[in-house]
């Protein structure tokens, strides 16, 4: 890969992460356990979608082949989406949705903080906007992790089950490869492995408060998202996401 291709890949991964989670959260709209969450979940989804759009636009610029946000977001084959597997899994119940959001947002808070000093001005600017939104996502989801973990026996059971469901996918957050090494060396990106200890410490605090056992959450073993090897959930997600662009290619909307 050329330097430009490395940077393109790095930004695209981030964009895909945000699009895919925004898609999942948007599925809750109108179906949440209470009206307040019918507002909060689309709100967070909108933030993530906004971040995805900034990242796709920037990725398109880096690539320099005239692909805009929609060409990147909508018309690639499944293998070309390089998001974390964690984010494409079905929502499951409200416990799993909130736990996933918390695990990712807690990571992204550290990530965006580290990106504020990126030598890449565009990425630093995206980080400056995203960090504020991400702090709210952390607060909102952490409160739910605590409420559900330390709520009723039923909610605690569901949280434990959600942890078992998601645990295998968490280690992917911290994977490094040639792309992350390149951007870290250039001072334009963050090596995610460097964030693992801080993430562990952050989530341990919340899990203690939630009276949940979070040991081993980062000892996952599922991998493949960054290379486009997905879970079964991804095809269905894309069938929805890409429906219009596939059925009516090349039109203005």
């Amino acid at each position, binding site marked *: 890969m050329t330097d430009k291709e490395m940077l393109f890949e790095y930004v695209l991964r981030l964009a895909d992460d945000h699009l895919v989670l925004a898609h999942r959260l948007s599925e809750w709209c109108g179906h949440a*356990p209470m009206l307040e969450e019918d507002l909060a979940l*689309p709100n967070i989804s909108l933030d993530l979608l906004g971040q995805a759009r900034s990242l796709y636009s920037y990725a398109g610029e880096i690539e320099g082949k005239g692909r805009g946000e929609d060409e990147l977001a909508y018309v690639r084959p499944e293998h070309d989406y390089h998001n974390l597997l964690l984010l494409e899994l079905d929502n499951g119940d409200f416990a799993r949705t909130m736990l996933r959001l918390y695990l990712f947002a807690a990571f992204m808070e550290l990530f965006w903080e580290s990106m504020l000093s990126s030598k890449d001005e565009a990425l630093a600017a995206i980080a400056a906007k995203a960090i504020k939104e991400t702090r709210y996502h952390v607060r909102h989801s952490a409160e739910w992790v605590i409420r559900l973990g330390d709520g009723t026996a039923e909610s605690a059971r569901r949280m434990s089950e959600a942890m078992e469901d998601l645990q295998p996918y968490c280690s992917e957050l911290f994977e490094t490869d040639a792309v992350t090494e390149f951007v870290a060396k250039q001072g334009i990106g963050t090596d995610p492995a460097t964030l693992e200890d801080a993430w562990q410490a952050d989530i341990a605090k919340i899990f203690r408060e939630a009276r949940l056992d979070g040991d081993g959450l980062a000892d996952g073993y599922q991998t493949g998202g960054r290379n486009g090897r997905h879970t079964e959930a991804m095809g269905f997600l894309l069938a929805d996401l890409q429906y219009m662009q596939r059925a009516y290619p090349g039109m203005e909307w």
Partner: protein
Amino acid sequence: MYSQGLIGADDSTEETPEFLEAFQKRIDSEDKIEPNDAMPEGYRRTLIRMIGQHAHSEIVGMLPEGNWITRAPTLKRKAALLAKVQDEGGHGLYLYSAAETLGVSRAQMTEELLEGKAKYSSIFNYPTLTWADIGAIGWLVDGAAIMNQIPLCRTSFGPYARAMIRVCKEESFHQRQGYEIMMVLARGSEKQKAMAQDALDRWWWPSLMMFGPHDSDSQHGDQSMRWKIKRFTNDELRQKFVDATVPQAEFIGLKMPDPDLKWNEERGHYDFGPIDWDEFWRVVKGKGQMNRERIKARRKAWDEGAWVREAALAHAAKRRARQEANRQAAE
């Protein structure tokens, strides 16, 4: 969105003639009635029902449009649709609060909706079949709702009037957004044009029905007008909507599905064909394609969320108990 002509309000009331006369005087002098003011029971009941139906319409209205969030054709459209549906939830929340000032709880109102006792705007019992339906709903359904709601900004009950001022600002934004979706489709490929026309064909008549029965058949119009809850009759508002919307359709080259539609120079209004009131009542009474689905979806969300709400209450109680224990230990 989406108040519609009120269905089935009971505005009978039993106060003394003196009380009613004094109340009417306040209304006639354009005084706003506030939650703690004395008011006829019929006035209170009518408003609870009207605001409740409006709130339920916002909440149920999230479903047909939410149906297209994951399939929106571009990121920009997806973001706008998400924001719109979220606005509707916000309107619902705001309206439930306005109704609560009249002594009914959100929980009670929710229960009535889920048990099928409370009405909501019947337009949401129609399905959203294509992306163009999202344009048509914004343009026509929000457009019709605005016609209803702009006069409600001056309705005699203060909290409802104030809620409507805020709601109307967002609705007119939604309406423009919907029209813009239709405009892009109408100027697009043959397939897109056909999609837009088909959506207009399906949504036009139900949009006209949103204003409720003809004045001659409307049982509750008169008292609501006297109390200045309503400022215009169903037929007046419907005519305003037709007059405003027909030129918009012409401008983007879509054809209204009404062979009788034509400008009447003498009246200064468009004449339009007869509305199929059998269809209206059929759908109001539960036989639209989506009546059962909409309520089932709301009930499913409510039932499946019960453990979440219970957990939140249980956690709050535990937290209070711990704080209390800490406080006592400190003393």
